[in-house]
């Protein structure tokens, strides 16, 4: 085993700051006289808020523990070996910080091989091995258990996954190879590909058992005791573990094909991880484990040295860390309590906002509008949504009663807002209307109340300009669908004070939104970039490039949907409106498409019809289009669109719209669903050389979202 030791020692030198996991070996007598047993506990010495991970020094510790139990097993001193975790945590896989530091393919290869070399030994011991999944298990944590002979899982286990593909890796310490050989390709594809690409969906303990990953399921209260009693029964032969025979025929190929279909629909071929994982799963059909491990090593090393993974880790850290501690937010102690919320407007957006505030803040929410019918409709919408939650058992009857009692609607703002602390408007997107609304609100609301606007493109400063207390106005820009997209752009007007801003961030946190501080600039972040992006697509179409060429040009980015499908979702009229706003602000870069105006004027909801089941250009729209005669290739279109985006982001950073490029990426990931493998967009622009071409420099420091130099 000296080669493994050396391999891990070398890797550990590259990662001096590893939080090292110990592998404690403790001996015990199994119940029912089943014999002496060695139990390995993985524990990094911290509580559950710092989950146990595997870096090279941690793997070396496990390796040393296996040295010990291997000798004991060979000498007949023990009848079996178990492995479990500290309270609430089994192990959550490789330490990503160590992966970020890797600069060379050979070092990346060593990480993969190191894990395999250690884990494999568990299946080669002279005695059976047992994994007891007591708590959260992810990635390498799941995989160390897959190398054991048997597994039990706790009903209380909250999260179990192979999230590698989600980040841009493959489950490369045996996951791609062992899992399909254990539970069949179909279920393995669902865990490795489908869950991973479905926002990193986690399995619960009972599902781990139902999938056949674990052989036994026990309740959390005495999970380890029952697991050890079960172990004794297995070792004595009183319990025989019977696993279903897996289908190695056509079903295997079909499962892999289904996996490719899922990958295509999610990343459109733009990120390699899912496809590499599927290749290994496909090859695992022959049951040759070592061949699979070798393929995992190669895939891991290739992906670790690739930009998609680095962008993925960067994006993951943005969402997990920067998203929770917004850059530039004032001290939270300045925030004022919000004990009652007012919503101006009772349309669909306003009603969604009322529902969100109600559910998250659980304070009285008052809705107003210009007539009783609209008010009733708005409150009715909220009640109906609460009933849906009740039917889905997301809330119980008591909670439903409470929420319904908290929402009310009145016509008279003075009656509704006299004691409100936070009033948000979601009325017609016209500056005069909004100023009028705020003036009315200010006349009746308490002096400390925050006046928030959900405007997507109007100036917050201008909206506040006619008020007695303009310092309490903030932009509070949500993204549709409000319940799903996490982003909330918080806009600071020129006169907005720190206390109002701090209150806005405190409310955002309670709303469980990812808040990003944005300067009061036209269309803020997401809409400005999307409009520039769409505008350039529209421009090339208007100039003569066929619609399908323009659409296909940006497919390699792997965006959640094509530009024209997105336009349809937003609504052509709104798209047009935003482009007009931006055109007024920046006439040299933002155009207003005559073709789009024509489509809107014709009352079309989009460019496509779906009669054949897939999108095809609507002949009525085609008839409206007046195109020039400049036909670009896909490459030319892509270059032009990406150049425009890079230029716009460069200008936004110069203007100080946000603090850093990281905030742009965070906005695009959480507000537009742009994928992790792009890292939002700036890592991709840097990687593809677009940033250098347009702005003369990359957006990010080398290594921030790329392989370090």
């Amino acid at each position: 085993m000296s080669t493994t030791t050396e391999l891990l020692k070398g890797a550990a030198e590259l990662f001096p700051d590893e939080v090292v996991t110990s592998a404690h070996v403790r001996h015990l007598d199994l119940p029912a006289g089943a014999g002496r047993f060695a139990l390995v506990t993985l524990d990094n010495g911290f509580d559950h808020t710092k989950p146990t991970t595997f870096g090279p020094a941690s793997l070396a510790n496990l390796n040393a523990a296996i040295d010990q139990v291997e000798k004991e097993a060979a000498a007949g001193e023990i009848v079996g070996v178990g492995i479990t975790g500290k309270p609430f945590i089994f192990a959550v896989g490789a330490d990503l910080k160590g992966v970020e530091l890797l600069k060379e393919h050979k070092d990346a290869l060593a990480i993969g091989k190191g894990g395999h070399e250690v884990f494999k030994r568990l299946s080669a011991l002279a005695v059976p091995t047992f994994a007891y999944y007591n708590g959260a298990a992810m990635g390498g944590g799941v995989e160390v258990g897959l190398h054991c002979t048997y597994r039990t899982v706790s009903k209380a286990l909250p999260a179990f996954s192979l999230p590698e593909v989600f980040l841009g890796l493959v489950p490369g310490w045996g996951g791609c190879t062992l899992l399909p050989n254990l539970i069949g390709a179909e279920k393995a594809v669902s865990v490795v590909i489908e869950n991973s690409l479905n926002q990193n969906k986690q399995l619960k303990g009972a599902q781990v058992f139902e999938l056949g990953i674990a052989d036994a399921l026990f309740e959390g209260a005495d999970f380890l005791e029952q697991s050890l009693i079960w172990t004794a029964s297995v070792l004595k032969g009183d319990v025989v573990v019977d696993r279903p025979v897996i289908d190695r025929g056509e079903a295997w190929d079909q499962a892999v094909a289904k996996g490719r279909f899922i990958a295509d629909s999610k990343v459109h071929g733009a990120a390699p991880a899912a496809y590499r994982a599927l290749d290994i799963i496909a090859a695992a059909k022959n049951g040759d484990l070592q061949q699979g491990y070798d393929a995992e090593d190669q895939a891991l090393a290739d992906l670790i040295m690739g930009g998609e993974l680095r962008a993925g880790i960067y994006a993951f850290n943005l969402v997990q860390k920067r998203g929770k501690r917004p850059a530039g937010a004032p001290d939270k102690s300045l925030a004022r309590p919000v004990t009652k919320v007012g919503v101006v407007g009772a349309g669909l957006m306003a009603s969604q906002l009322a529902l969100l505030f109600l559910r998250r803040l659980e304070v009285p929410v008052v809705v107003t509008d210009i007539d009783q019918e609209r008010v009733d409709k708005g409150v009715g919408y909220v009640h109906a949504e609460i009933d849906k939650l009740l039917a889905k058992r997301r809330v119980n009857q008591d909670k439903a009663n409470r929420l319904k009692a908290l929402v009310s609607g009145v016509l008279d703002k003075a009656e509704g807002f006299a004691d409100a602390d936070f009033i948000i408007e979601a009325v017609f997107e016209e500056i005069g209307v909004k100023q009028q609304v705020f003036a009315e609100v200010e006349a009746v609301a308490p002096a400390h109340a925050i006046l928030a606007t959900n405007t997507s493109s109007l100036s917050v400063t201008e909206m506040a300009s006619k008020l007695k207390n303009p310092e309490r106005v903030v932009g509070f820009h949500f993204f549709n669908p409000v319940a799903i997209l996490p982003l909330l752009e918080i806009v600071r007007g020129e006169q907005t004070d720190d206390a109002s801003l701090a209150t806005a961030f405190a409310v955002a946190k309670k709303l469980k939104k990812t808040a990003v501080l944005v300067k009061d600039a036209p269309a803020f972040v997401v809409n400005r970039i999307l409009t520039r992006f769409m505008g350039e697509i529209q421009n090339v179409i208007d100039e003569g490039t066929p619609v399908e060429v323009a659409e296909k040009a940006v497919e390699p980015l792997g965006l959640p949907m094509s530009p024209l499908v997105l336009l349809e979702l937003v609504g052509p009229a709104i798209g047009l409106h935003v482009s007009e706003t931006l055109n007024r602000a920046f006439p040299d870069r933002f155009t207003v498409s005559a073709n789009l105006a024509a489509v809107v004027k014709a009352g079309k909801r989009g460019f496509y019809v779906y009669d054949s089941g897939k999108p095809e250009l609507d002949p009525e729209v085609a008839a409206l289009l007046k195109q020039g005669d400049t036909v670009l290739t896909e490459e030319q279109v892509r270059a032009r669109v990406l150049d425009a985006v890079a230029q716009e982001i460069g200008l936004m950073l110069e203007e100080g719209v946000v603090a850093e490029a990281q905030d742009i990426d965070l906005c695009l990931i959480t507000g537009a669903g742009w994928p992790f493998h792009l890292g939002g967009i700036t890592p991709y622009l840097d990687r593809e050389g677009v940033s250098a071409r347009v702005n003369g420099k990359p957006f990010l420091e080398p290594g921030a979202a790329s392989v370090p130099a």
Partner: protein
Amino acid sequence: MPRTVRDVVFVDGVRTPFGKAGPKGIYHETRADDLVVKAIRELLRRNPGLDPKKIDEVAIAATTQIGDQGLTLGRTAGILAGLPQSVPGYSIDRMCAGALTAVTTTAGSIAFGAYDAVIAGGVEHMGRHPMGEGVDPNPRFVSEKLVDESALFMGMTAENLHDRYPHITKLRADQYAVRSQEKAAKAYANGKIQQDLVPISVRRTNPEAGETGWGLVTADEPMRPGTTLENLSGLKTPFRVHGRVTAGNAAGLNDGATASIIASEDFARENGLPVKMRLVSYAFAGVEPEVMGYGPIPATEKALAQAGLSIADIGLFEINEAFAIQVLAFLDHYGIADDDERVNQYGGAIAYGHPLASSGVRLMTQLARQFEEQPNVRYGLTTMCVGFGMGATVIWENPHFEGDK
């Protein structure tokens, strides 16, 4: 409304292995509530005939009812054990006789007709909650000489009991202790004890205490098989210079939990539950707090009188061995030999340990096993001394009794 008193039975009892209190003890990093929760769960697993919805009460005793032994342990332990929310619970305290009182109090309610079936047990984690933690005795105890100052220190009360019975020497106490260890070792060798133990997973992070990581406790930690008179003779007498009470002839400071199912006999029969013992009578009595070890004698007198029995009718005794002197005082009172075979056949707390409020149910569980083995015995009793000058006795009838042979 006419009422009929109902027969009450001991259905089943289990316990955790007992541990030594302190930083090197097996349960040092284990919560007290988890111990009793695991005991309750094992009881339910062993008795699938008992529908958890039909449990009417969970009565759990602890002496120091704070921290993980606080928060109305009977209720919280029930929820943690996975019992339906409809099952209520409460906490009980009579110091050492906590679990015993949990049994008698719920048994009284069963006889009255308020309950059909209950969980009764106790827990004491003396490592996490040393005796006397957080107490605040009223100064009048001393200023008005209501009790002697030694009354709060159990070891001193045991020395006081030696004073009262000078003929019970340290040698007799040590000889008794050696026999307790021998009987316990024999009971282990014959598998009498393990069948009612609940394995407990334990974590250790302090390498000074032994191997670290998760382990499993399947046996009592305090036992010292092979203890000899020579071993004991040299031990210190920590409660009095030239005293008689040592760590060797007393129970230690321990961690552990017990739980039992108590039910009306009709309920047990209807639900196919075992009937291991039938309750005959129970009594508590007070004595001078400074000789609390005397308590079992008046308590037993009362219990025998209620039952219309004499001491000669009792075929098996389970006496809690808080101190050897206290057992010997009891035996002397009734003219029973120190090594009488009817007494503590499996050994006692000197060997197994005495996690205060949990011990009562250990006595019952052991008596129940002895009843099974000895159908010639009709009556047995469980008795214990209690801090602040009390005694507690329960008399049981053997349902396996086959008549005099």
